[in-house]
C-alpha cells in the first residue's frame, strides 16, 4: 500500500468519510431556486427561470431505486482503464432514481453484482469503490450496491 487514494474526479463524492456509511455523492443546490445538480454546477444555475450564482454543496440521498441497468460485455475504449493482457470481465452499470432529488444518477455496481442480481425498482445504496489502480495511485469512485447485499 502507501499509494495515494485519489478520487477519479474531485468534488463529486466525500473523499475521506469518518465511517464508510457516511459516504455520499456530492452535488450542489442553487441558493435561489433550490435546483439540485449532479455533477455539480459551481458557477451558474442551469434552471432557465433562475439567474442564481450561489451554489452550495449538498450530499445526495444515499439510497435510491434502480431506474434501469445494463452491463458491458466488451472492453470499452480509452480513457476507461483496463489491462489488455487480462480477459475482459463485464461490469454492471446501474441508473438509480433518487426520490428526494427526483433525478437519476448513473454508476457502476459494486464488483460481483451482475444484471441477474438486479431488477428495476430495487433499492440500492451508494458505497465507496475503487475504479482502477496504477503504480502511484488508487483511483476511487462511487458504486451502487443492492441494499442488503453483502459488503
Amino acid at each position, binding site marked *: 500500500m502507501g499509494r495515494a487514494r485519489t478520487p*477519479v*474526479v474531485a468534488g463529486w463524492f466525500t473523499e475521506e468519510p469518518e465511517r464508510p456509511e457516511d459516504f455520499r455523492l456530492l452535488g450542489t443546490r442553487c441558493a435561489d*431556486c*433550490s*435546483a*439540485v*445538480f*449532479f*455533477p455539480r454546477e459551481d458557477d451558474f444555475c*442551469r*434552471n*432557465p*427561470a433562475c439567474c442564481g450564482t450561489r451554489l452550495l454543496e449538498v450530499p445526495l440521498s444515499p439510497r435510491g431505486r434502480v*431506474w*434501469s*441497468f*445494463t*452491463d*458491458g*460485455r*466488451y472492453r*470499452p*475504449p*480509452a*480513457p*476507461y*482503464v*483496463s489491462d489488455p493482457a487480462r480477459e475482459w470481465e463485464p*461490469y454492471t*452499470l446501474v*441508473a438509480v*432514481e433518487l*426520490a*428526494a*432529488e*427526483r*433525478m*437519476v*444518477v*448513473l*454508476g*457502476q455496481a459494486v464488483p460481483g453484482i451482475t*444484471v441477474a442480481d438486479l*431488477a*428495476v*425498482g430495487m433499492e440500492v445504496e451508494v458505497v465507496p469503490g475503487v*475504479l482502477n489502480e496504477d503504480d502511484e495511485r488508487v483511483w476511487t*469512485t462511487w458504486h451502487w450496491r443492492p441494499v442488503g447485499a453483502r459488503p
Partner: protein
Amino acid sequence: MDHLALASGGSAAVTGDVAVLGAGMHPWGKWGRGFTEYGVAAAREALADAGLDWTRVTLVCGAQTVRGGYPGHVAGAAFARALGWQGARVSSSYAACASGAQAVNTARAHILAGMADVALVVGADAAPKGFFAPAGGERADDPDWLRFRILGATNPAYFALYARRRMAVHGDTAEDFALVKVKNAAAGAANPCARYRRAVTADEVAASPVVADPLRLLDICATSDGAAALVLSSMEFARRHTAHPVWITAVSTVTPRFPQTVLELPDFATDSAAGTDPAAGTGKDGAGTVRTGAVQAGRDHAGTVHAGTEPDRAGFRASIAAAAYEEAGAGPEDLDLAEVYDLSTALELQWYEDIGLCPPGDAARLLREGATGLGGRIPVNPSGGLASFGEAVPAQAIAQVCEAVRQLRGQAGDRQIEGARVALTANQGLFGHGSSVVVVR
C-alpha cells in the same frame, strides 16, 4: 392539412417552404476512403438528379463530424474545394447526429431570407472501427470523456438502459426488439444504398452476442462510411425549374427543456425535477407561446403524459417532433411514412411513441400488428434504417430526407409506399442535439 393548400397557391413568404430539387447518396459501407470523396459522389448525384450544374449553386452547407471536420479540414469548404472552387458561399454545421438536419436548416434559412436561391447540402463520414470513443488526452471537464473514464459507458450502454427500462415499464420483450431488426433488414435488402442488404431472422438476432444486456449485436446499429446530399431551392426557382418538386415544410432543431428528466448521452445524471414543476414549463418570463405550444402539441400527439415523479414523461424526443409538426401544420395522422433514428431496435419503438404514432407503451403492439412494416398502415424506416445502414453521423439525417424524397416521388423501387405524400424524419444525438424534418409533395 393546411400546407397542401398553401403549397399549390401560396408563396414562400407565407409557407416558409423550400423545394428539394435533387437527392443523392454514396452507398453506405466500410470503404476505407476519405469522407470528401463520398461527399462529392453524393453531391454530384444530387446535382444530376436536380438537373443543375454545380456552378449554379450559390451556397454549400456541409455537415461535419469532429473526426471528419477538424479545423483546417472543415466539411463545407472541403466539399466545395473538391467540387471545384466556384465562389459559392459556405457553411459548416456540427450538431452530432443532427448535423445533417442543421445543414439543411442553414440552407433553408438562407433561401427563405433571399440570401441564396440554390443550395447544396452535403454530409459525409468515414467512421472509425468499433465503439465511438472520445478524443484523447486528460479532459476531466468534458462529460463525454468522463463517462468513458469513470463508467466505461459506451453509447450501446445507454441504449441498453433505455431498452431495459422499456421492458420493465411497458413489457416489451427481446423478441419485440428482434422484430424491429427483422422488419428493417427486410426493407434494407431492397435498398441499393444500404450497407447490409439481406434479410435477418429473429433467430439470428437471438443468436448474436450480447453487447450490453439486454441488447445484442444485431439490436445495435453499426458505424459506417457514407454520404448524402440534397439540392434545395426557393419556391420561385423551383417553379421555373421543375413541374414536380417536393417541399420541406419543417425543420425542427429544438434543444431540450429544463429539467431534462430522461437520462441522455453522455450524461451522468438527469436534471433534478425537485423544486421545479415540469408540467408548467420552465421558460423565463415571456418564454412565449411557441415553446408552450410545442410542448402542448407533443402531449396531444403522444397521448396522456404523466408529469411529476414519473421520469418517462414526454421529453426531448417528443418535443423535437412536436416542433416539426407545429411548423408543418401537420400531425402524426397525416404521415405516410417516417424515418426515425433506430440506434437500437428498442429506440425505434420509443420513437413510435415520441412522434405520436401511438400512446406511450403501445409501440410493440403497433410493431407486432405489422403497421410499421412495408405495406403497413404507417411504415417506419422504409429505407431499412440504421439497422441496414449503420450510422454515418453527419450524413444520416440527410439520408433520412433522401429516403423521404424518393418515397414521395415514387422512386423507391421495391420499397415504394403507394401514394406517399407526407413524410417525417426524426433523430437525436449527443449533447442535446436532435432534429425532425417534414417533407411533402
